[in-house]
C-alpha cells in the first residue's frame, strides 16, 4: 500500500497521541494515595470513557486497549497490516486453550482480546482434532502444538514452540511487507526474545535451548546457543558480541534492569515512527506505544494494590511513547 493512503489514519492517530499520558501524569499516578485515586486520575485522562464507571482498574485498562484498537481499525484503510499486532493475542489464546483443555479448566478469563481467531473456534478445533477451519496463519501451528501437548504433556514445551512459531510468522510477514521499520522492529524483538531465552535457559538441556531460541532471516542465535550451554557470563558476553553492550551493562545491575532495558530499547525504535507523517509506521508506533503506556499504568496500579515500595515500582517503569 502507498504511504499516502494512510494520511487520514495517521492524522487521526496524531490527535490520539496528544491524549496519551505524559511523564507528569505518571508522576501524579505515582504520588496517588491508592488504587482508587489512580482510577480517578485515569478517568480524568479519558480512560474508560466508554464504560459505566464501576469497573475495576484492570477492566478499565483492557477496555482502553480494545477502544484504541477499534478506533485504529476504523480509520485505517482496508488491507493495512494491523493484524500483525493481533497475532500475539491469538497465539496466547491458542496456548491457553490447549493447556486448559489438557487440565480440564475454564479458559474464558485468560483470553486476550482483540483477536482474529474466535477462541470458541480454537476450542472446537482442539475438541474435534480438526484444525482446517482455523485462520490460515495459525492452522499448522495449532495442529503441531496439539500433537506436542498430547505427546509430551508439557505446557512449557508448547509455549516455547508457539512463541517461536509466532516470531517466525511475524518475521515472514515483515519481510513480505518490505517495510524497513517493521523489519527492524521484528529484528529487535527476536534478538531481545533470544537474549531472554538464553539467559533463563542456562542449565537446561541442549535440545531445549535449541528448540527455544528463535531463528529468523535477520537474526542468527548460534552464538547464544553455544553460550547458554556454558553459563550466564558467557551469555552476557555473547549479547555484547551482537552489538548490545548496554544490554550486557544492565545485566550487571539486575535482571529487572535488563528487562527494563529491553522494553526501553524497543520503545526507542518505536519512537522513530513519531517523526513520520505518512505510512503505516506512525499507526504501528502509536498502538505499541499505547500498549507500553498501559503496561506502565499496570505497574503503578499493581504496586499500589500490593503495597510494593515506590522505589521498586520506579525501577521498573518503562519509557513512554510521548
Amino acid at each position, binding site marked *: 500500500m502507498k504511504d499516502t493512503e494512510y494520511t487520514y489514519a495517521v492524522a487521526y492517530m496524531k490527535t490520539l497521541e496528544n491524549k496519551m499520558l505524559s511523564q507528569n501524569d505518571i508522576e501524579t499516578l505515582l504520588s496517588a494515595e491508592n488504587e482508587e485515586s489512580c482510577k480517578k486520575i485515569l478517568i480524568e485522562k479519558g480512560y474508560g470513557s466508554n464504560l459505566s464507571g464501576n469497573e475495576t482498574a484492570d477492566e478499565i485498562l483492557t477496555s482502553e486497549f480494545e477502544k484504541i484498537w477499534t478506533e485504529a481499525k476504523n480509520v485505517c484503510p482496508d488491507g493495512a497490516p494491523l493484524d500483525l499486532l493481533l497475532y500475539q493475542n491469538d497465539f496466547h489464546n491458542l496456548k491457553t486453550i490447549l493447556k486448559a483443555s489438557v487440565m480440564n479448566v475454564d479458559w474464558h478469563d485468560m483470553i486476550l482480546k482483540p483477536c482474529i481467531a474466535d477462541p470458541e473456534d480454537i476450542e472446537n478445533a482442539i475438541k474435534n482434532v480438526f484444525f482446517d477451519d482455523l485462520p490460515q496463519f495459525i492452522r499448522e501451528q495449532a495442529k503441531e502444538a496439539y500433537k506436542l501437548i498430547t505427546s509430551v504433556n508439557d*505446557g*512449557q514445551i508448547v509455549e516455547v514452540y508457539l512463541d517461536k512459531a509466532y516470531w517466525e510468522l511475524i518475521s515472514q510477514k515483515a519481510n513480505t511487507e518490505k517495510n524497513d521499520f517493521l523489519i527492524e522492529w521484528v529484528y529487535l524483538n527476536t534478538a531481545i526474545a533470544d537474549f531472554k531465552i538464553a539467559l533463563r535457559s542456562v542449565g537446561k538441556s541442549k535440545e531445549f535451548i535449541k528448540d527455544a531460541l528463535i531463528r529468523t532471516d535477520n537474526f542468527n542465535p548460534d552464538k547464544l546457543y553455544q553460550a547458554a550451554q556454558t553459563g550466564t557470563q558467557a551469555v552476557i558476553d555473547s549479547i555484547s558480541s551482537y552489538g548490545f553492550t548496554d544490554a550486557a551493562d544492565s545485566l550487571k545491575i539486575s535482571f529487572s534492569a*535488563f528487562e527494563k532495558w529491553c522494553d526501553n530499547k524497543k520503545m526507542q525504535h518505536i519512537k522513530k515512527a513519531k517523526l513520520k507523517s505518512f505510512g503505516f509506521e506512525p499507526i504501528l508506533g502509536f498502538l505499541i506505544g499505547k500498549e507500553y503506556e498501559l503496561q506502565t499504568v499496570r505497574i503503578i496500579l*499493581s504496586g499500589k494494590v500490593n503495597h510494593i515500595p515506590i522505589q*521498586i515500582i520506579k525501577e*521498573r517503569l518503562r519509557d513512554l511513547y510521548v
Partner: protein
Amino acid sequence: MAQLNVNPTRMELTRLKKSLSTALRGHKLLKDKRDELMRQFLDIVRENKVLREKVEKQIAEANQYFAVAGSLMKREVLSSALLMPKQGVDLNVGTKNIMSVDIPTFNVKTKTNSKNDIFSYGYVNTSGDMDTAISILSETLDDMLKLAEYEKSAQLLASEIEKTRRRVNALEYVMIPNYEDTIRYISMSLTKAKEATRQGY
C-alpha cells in the same frame, strides 16, 4: 475432706492400701511422662518458631516477586503461564512415636530434581521476577512440610500433655487424698471397734 463409700473392714483397708500404692506409683510415672512431653513440646515449639519465621519470610518474598511479575505481565498471561504445572510432588506420610503419641512425618519427593526444570511457561512473554518467585516457593516447599510436621506434632503433644496433666491432677488432688482419707477413716473405725470390743470384755 472426701472419702470413699466403703465398708470399714480390714479387707477393704488392705485393698485401699494397695490402690494407694498403685496410685502413688502411677502419679510419679505420669508426672515423669508429663515432664518429658513438656520437654519435647518445648523443643518442637522452639524449632517451629524459627521455621515459621523463615517460611513466612520466604512466602512474603515470593509474593512480592509475584506481585511485581503481575504488574509487568497482563493478568491473563500470568494466569495462563501457571495453568499447567511442570513440577510434580509425591508426599509420603508416616508416623513417629514420641511418648506414646503418634506424630506425622512427611517425606517429599519431586518429579525432577533440577532447579531449572520447574517452570511451566515460555520465556519470551513472561517476567524474570516470576522465575524468582517460583524458585523461592520451590525451595520453601521442604521447609513448609517440615513446618506442617512440627505444627501438627506440637498440637498432638499439647493435647497429650493436657490429658496427662488432668490425670496427674486427678491422682494428686482427688484419688490419692481420697484413698488416704478413707484409709485413715477405716483405720480409725477399726481402732474404735477394737477398743469397744476390749471394753465389752
